[in-house]
């Protein structure tokens, strides 16, 4: 299954694509495509999960540490948000950059609107939110975040997701707020912004439950999670899981956990325990913790297979060579695998028969069978981090 990569200078300035197989002349779909971030080199690999192969490398996307990706609703374009404030629209069919802008100084992630016409980016520097048209990346709105107490700069913006009703939600790390940015009134020049203040200290990441109802922010500066019920926003932000978070005798947190990919299976949510070697199970009827599952390290991503029957977990340094699999029914670890040092991300194929795992320090992306829990294929990639498949285009809240 290994394909020979064609070698191009990684530092080439040209925004070129290097086809690993010849560009398809036949029309083709994009439902089995995806991208793998090569974070140090600033490239993305276009991959295809029908044949488990890389089909092209697109270069020149800048600093891709902590990059994230959303897809256009036709699943043809990938929007890549880079750390350096770059926003790059990659054409998966033509295997090249369609458009690239530097929209801010330092950003962490973005989202695409319900109707697919708007791309929103949350920025650290300068702190705020920028909204662009999805087709041409033209600026539509620029919403500065609240200034921090000493007035020196604006709060950093984290946890950007889209929500039903043409909305975006974000959290403000430094000023402890959640905002709803509402574009549903297409006649208005500017979106309406609803601000919820005093939601807790240092929200560092957020997630939307898969049906799009609850927006939940993890708080770094204190225990518990901040939750906003989008069906009843007038009730305001409430605190759930007060014991959650760093808790007693927490270990140093060497890497911030991600809340994306929260699994709700059988009214149970599986979430990383911050500063603990645990995955916590939360009853989503009462929002109380029902169990803590002991793990080999501090969880980073806790992701459910699409049928929610298994939960796959990777870990922070110094345990980032492992991945553990939890049975969602018995809530026990059924297997510990060791893909290799620097496991950074995982992505299930749309129906979950395989999981792709990026193993940074081996320069590999590994494809594992989720039924047999065996390693099937290996793709070469240069310091791979995030893996994103196009079926994300049709999921709410990513």
């Amino acid at each position, binding site marked *: 299954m290994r394909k020979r990569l064609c*070698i191009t*200078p*990684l530092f080439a300035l040209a925004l070129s694509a290097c086809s690993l197989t010849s560009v398809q002349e036949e029309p083709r779909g994009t439902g089995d495509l995806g991208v793998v971030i090569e*974070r*140090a080199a600033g490239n993305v690999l276009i991959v295809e999960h029908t044949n488990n192969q890389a089909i092209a490398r697109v270069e020149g996307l800048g*600093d891709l*540490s*902590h990059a994230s990706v959303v897809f256009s609703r036709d699943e043809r374009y990938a929007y890549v948000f880079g*750390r*350096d404030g770059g926003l790059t629209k990659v054409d998966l069919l033509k295997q090249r950059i369609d458009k690239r802008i530097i929209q801010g100084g*330092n950003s*962490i992630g973005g989202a695409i609107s319900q109707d697919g016409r708007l791309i929103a980016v949350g920025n*650290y*520097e300068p702190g705020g939110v920028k909204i662009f048209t999805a087709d041409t990346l033209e600026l539509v709105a620029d919403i500065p975040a609240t200034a921090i107490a000493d007035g020196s700069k604006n709060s*950093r913006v984290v946890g950007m997701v889209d929500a039903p009703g043409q909305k975006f939600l974000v959290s403000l*790390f430094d000023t402890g707020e959640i905002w709803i940015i509402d574009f549903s009134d297409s006649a208005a020049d500017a979106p309406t912004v609803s601000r919820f203040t005093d939601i807790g200290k*240092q929200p*560092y990441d957020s997630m939307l439950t898969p049906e799009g109802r609850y927006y939940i922010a993890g708080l*770094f*500066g204190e225990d518990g999670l901040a939750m906003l019920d989008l069906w009843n926003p007038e009730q305001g932000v409430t605190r759930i899981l007060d014991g959650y978070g760093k808790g007693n005798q927490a270990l*140093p*947190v*060497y*890497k*911030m956990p991600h809340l994306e990919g929260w699994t709700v299976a059988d009214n149970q949510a599986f979430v990383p325990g911050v500063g603990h070697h645990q995955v916590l199970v939360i009853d989503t009827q009462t929002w109380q913790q029902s169990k803590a599952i002991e793990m080999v390290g501090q969880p980073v991503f806790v992701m459910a297979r699409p049928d929610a029957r298994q939960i796959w977990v990777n870990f922070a*340094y*110094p345990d980032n060579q492992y991945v553990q699999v939890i049975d969602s029914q018995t809530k026990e670890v059924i297997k510990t695998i060791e893909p290799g040092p*620097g496991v950074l991300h995982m992505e299930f194929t749309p129906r979950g028969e395989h999981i792709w795992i990026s193993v*940074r*320090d081996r320069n590999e992306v590994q494809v594992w069978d989720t039924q047999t829990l065996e390693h099937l294929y290996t793709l070469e990639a240069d310091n791979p981090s995030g893996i994103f498949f196009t079926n994300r285009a049709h999921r709410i809240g990513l």
Partner: protein
Amino acid sequence: MRYLSKRKYAVIFLMASFLFPLTSHAESISAERQATLKHLLIQDCGSCHGLRMKGGLGPALTPGDIADKPKEGLVATIIHGRPGTAMPPWAALLTDQEATWLIDQLLQGVSP
């Protein structure tokens, strides 16, 4: 790939010829450990401070950002962290000497 690894050798050679005599701590940190530390700095510190140390959740740590801050203070920040912030204490994984070596690297500028 060939070219890159050649370049890496060149970098290592440069480091060997210039940095070692300048940094008194380097002598007792083995070359292997230094490689591990460099990797830790870029990948793991970089997950908060940015792969290019230009900042993220944690502040920027480029030479321009930290050059005029007292070195002991920066080393202490690495070892003990900053309680109440996301900066974790690294005492369980790094010695004082290694933390000092990391600050020396930052003062010279690091890139992935």
